[in-house]
């Protein structure tokens, strides 16, 4: 594996993903704030949650890029469209399995079945995160596709 190339391409792809998601939220395509969602796993303080969540999201993205790179190496194939396909698959997983599991693993997330409680007060994402705005899946697919495509075009096989 080409470690320096992974570090660089993972960083750039992660930067693009974060920027695209934040832009989608700023422009009103989605309400989903991933750093806030991740940060509230750690703390119930809103401002701290944003900061912690932002750091967690960066680390997370880098870690996921490692999985992409391992697949590139295993397949001995790396290019932008292969990365893009992996990104779409990744987004599909996040939106379906990831989001439906979230209320069970997130310590502060409520569920439709139990309602909000003293600790669990956060709105669950629902199927494909549609609770966070109907265009949310589009924004997640696009940002992850960009993540994969950038990774695929910047990473050099060993």
């Amino acid at each position, binding site marked *: 594996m080409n470690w320096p190339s992974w570090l660089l391409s993972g960083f750039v792809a992660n930067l693009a993903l974060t920027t695209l998601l934040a832009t989608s939220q700023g422009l009103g395509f989605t309400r989903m704030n991933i750093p806030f969602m991740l940060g509230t796993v750690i703390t119930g*303080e809103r401002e701290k949650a944003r900061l912690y969540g932002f750091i967690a999201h960066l680390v997370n993205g880098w870690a996921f890029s490692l999985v992409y790179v391992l697949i590139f190496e295993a397949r001995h194939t790396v290019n932008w469209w292969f990365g893009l396909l992996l990104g779409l698959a990744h987004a599909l997983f996040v939106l379906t399995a990831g989001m439906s599991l979230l209320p069970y693993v997130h310590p502060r997330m*409520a569920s439709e*079945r139990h309602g909000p409680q*003293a600790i669990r007060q956060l709105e669950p994402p629902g199927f494909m995160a549609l609770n966070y705005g109907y265009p949310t899946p589009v924004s997640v697919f696009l940002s992850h596709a960009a993540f994969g495509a950038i990774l695929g075009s910047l990473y050099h096989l060993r």
Partner: protein
Amino acid sequence: MLECGADDRIPGIEDYAIIGDCRAAALVSRCGQIDWLCWPRFDSPSIFAALLDQERGGHWRIAPLGPYSAERAYVSESNVLETRFRTASGTLLLTDLMPVTESRASLVPDHEIVRRLSCTAGDAEVEVELVPRARYGGVVPALRQAGRLGIRIECGRGVYWLRSSIPLRLGEGVASAPTRLKAGQSLLFSFSYAEEAPAVLPPLEEIPQRIDECVCWWRRWAAQAQYDGEAREEVIRSALALKLLIFTPSGAIVAAPTTSLPERIGGGLNWDYRYCWLRDASLTIRALLELGYWEEAAHFLDWLLHATRLTQPELNIAYTVFGNPMPEEWESQTLAGYRGSRPVRIGNAARDQLQLDVYGEVIDAAAQYAFHGGTLDREMQKVMIGFGRYVIKHWELPDEGIWEPRSGRRHHTHSRLLSWTALDRLITLCHQGKLEHAPVDEYRKQADQIHRQIEAAGWNQRLGSYVSVLDGDQLDASLLLLSWYGFEKADSPRMRSTYRRLRERLGTPDGLLYRSEPPAREGTFAICSFWAAEYLALGGGTVSEARDLLNTLLKYRNDIGLYGEEIEAGSGRFLGNFPQAFTHVGLIGAALSLNQRQKGEQPLAHRRESASRAEPHQKQPA
């Protein structure tokens, strides 16, 4: 107490109360109905606007079914509202608030209204009805039941959540439930809004504790007020109302939280006041500083000098809470207007007007801050010098003036007064070493020139009065501010004579004052009436005259101590946007000046320090 029934009439403007969280506000009618709410901030589109159209505007009602009487009050020295309903069979207590808290340790919704209805005696049939209508009544949003999370209303870029301790039935754009409450039982509701996901959905069982916390927060804030004079209760209520109109994230203060409440029923004098007018700066800063609210005053001054940066050294007459120009004006085709008073205007066309008085207002606000011990940093000083340069270049121009008529520009005496004030305060700041590298000699030369012009052309010898427009023959109430800004002593023959003419031409037998001639187009202007009381307190009359007028004006407040923009002569009913920050600033100012006069204290700091020029005019009037 008001008799209400199932077919409630359209409430009077004075029948409303305000609740808020210093970012947005809602108006609650005496009949338990929230008729106005814009989220996430004051000038956002409405979700409830029954205030401007009972049919299409949208509302949230929690009230007894059938006839009842209602009385209400704020929980002492707080902005938590309690409405007590009495029916034939029982008594209910409705508590309304927008929670505010200092605690950052727990998650709370971005924006929330909390309501609790308790049955305190007997039993009563109750109706709960939520009718959200987004974008000024133009959109009927879909309501979706989301299990035990509550009712979800997706709308634009945000989502509203209604949480209720009783199940609500969903209809076409309506959530409702009739129910019966017995003594000791309560209903709890939380209505929240978020533009960020995941939204926070608070558990209903925490509501009683959160209400207590909110009351404590407001009481702590009110307790900071350093005032022990006449009408303390009314002054504190005014300060609390003013605080609700401060947009805390930026420090800006909106003129009022509503749009298009008419200055004349059925007329076209309907304006959007959900923005921040610079002309209010000086009087507002003074009220905050003298009451001891330093943090709010400093924050407001920061906003004045920094949020206006995009247009400096030119100043618009008003800005949004984040310092952007007011949006262009448009008229709603959906809303019928308060009691049919069309049009309902969104945005404000006065944004393109020229008002030269704003420079004096802003500079005087900064000067007061400095005279009270605040520091003007280097950046602020540069901004002030830029304003001074602008005044020197432009003070001779005609402008629209303080009352913003849409009839063209004229040479207003008030605008000249504030141009003089701007230069006078800059000179004083320079003398005190609080402003460096400023062209003091030029300031003095121009200030003297303006002073001479006001004395000559602003005074009408035939009338024996200062006049609204140079060389004119009409009066307006802003002339009372000649003393407020230290241009001429309140007890000077000219000012006393001007006051008499104002009373003759603009006064009513009830002690109220119209703002300008001709007087009958609209209601009497509440702040002008308070200016009159303050003028008397400043030396234009005796202490008892000032106190009597102040006490007369206090009788016009509504049952919970609030004022709108105007008061209808005779009936005492409110007109115009409500509640009005400027009116409450006027009340505080009059009380402060009266208190200082009674105690024999020095005049207010900004006047005491404005001694950089010759003695005021002492000539006898004609």
